């Protein structure tokens, strides 16, 4: 193939871009409808292990201190957001407030994930002890 042919946008390029965009749309729809509605609790995990679950209808401030660093999650007005973090990039603080089921806030450097869950999953019972300690 001539070198110059590769400099013009062709039909295959457009098919590729459209295909990826379509895949993104389908995934977005699946995620959107799989976790529909407002969640009732948030679950905080570090390294995939549950640190605690907290009700979204009770305003509170949750400091999380681990070997990776410190994060402060705030529940206010039925939503949760990352108020403080001593991670290098602070992406977690820029991800806004979450309250829809399956929404997440991720602090990658601290391996910390805050996720919104419905009120009746097994995480609730399994983390009861951890939650009590955190309180």
């Amino acid at each position, binding site marked *: 193939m001539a070198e110059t042919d590769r400099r013009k946008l062709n039909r295959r*390029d457009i098919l590729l871009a459209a295909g990826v965009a379509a895949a993104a749309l389908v995934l977005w729809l699946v995620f959107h409808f799989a976790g529909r509605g407002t969640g009732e609790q948030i679950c905080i995990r570090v390294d995939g292990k549950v640190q605690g679950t907290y009700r979204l209808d009770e305003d509170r401030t949750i400091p999380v201190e681990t070997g990776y660093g410190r994060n402060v999650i705030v529940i206010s007005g039925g939503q949760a957001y990352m108020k403080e973090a001593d991670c290098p990039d602070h992406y977690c603080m820029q991800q806004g407030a979450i309250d829809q089921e399956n929404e997440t806030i991720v602090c*990658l450097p601290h391996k910390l994930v805050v996720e919104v869950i419905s009120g009746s999953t097994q995480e609730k019972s399994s983390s009861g002890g951890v939650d009590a300690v955190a309180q």
Partner: protein
Amino acid sequence: MTPAAKAAYIAILIALSLILSYVEALIPLNFGVPGIKLGLANLVVLIGLFLLRPGEVLAISTARIFLAGFLFGNAASIIYSLAGGLASFAVMLLLIRFSHLSIMGVSIAGGVSHNVGQIIVAALAVENIKILYYLPALLIAGVLTGLLIGVIGGRVLPVVRRIVRRR
């Protein structure tokens, strides 16, 4: 090209991609989704794949990732950059060899695979599959940034090719 000339070209391209990483670090782009950035340094990899041997491009790319990581990032950012960098390198190399995509299409595939590689490593790191929630946004971002880099690459490649040929 003599070995000395080749070594010089590779060194210049590493320096160039490091400057692009620096420029990128200066632009405070924030889309609210972690990991989305322009990927300016990918321009060097893209052009390199059309001009040099794959091993040489891989050396440039990994050298750039480690240098930029030490200068502007941290150990974690090096791992994510490597995941994205290796994924997009492999995909772009295969597409240049075995597809009829233009430089724009190759770059789009590179941008998308970079983001997919990074989020897979991120999901493994936090051991939580739910962060794949960001995947749709990252796919679209990969297409847009890939297209931008591809358009620039299409303009720059013939100029660089002329300079290399003149030697």
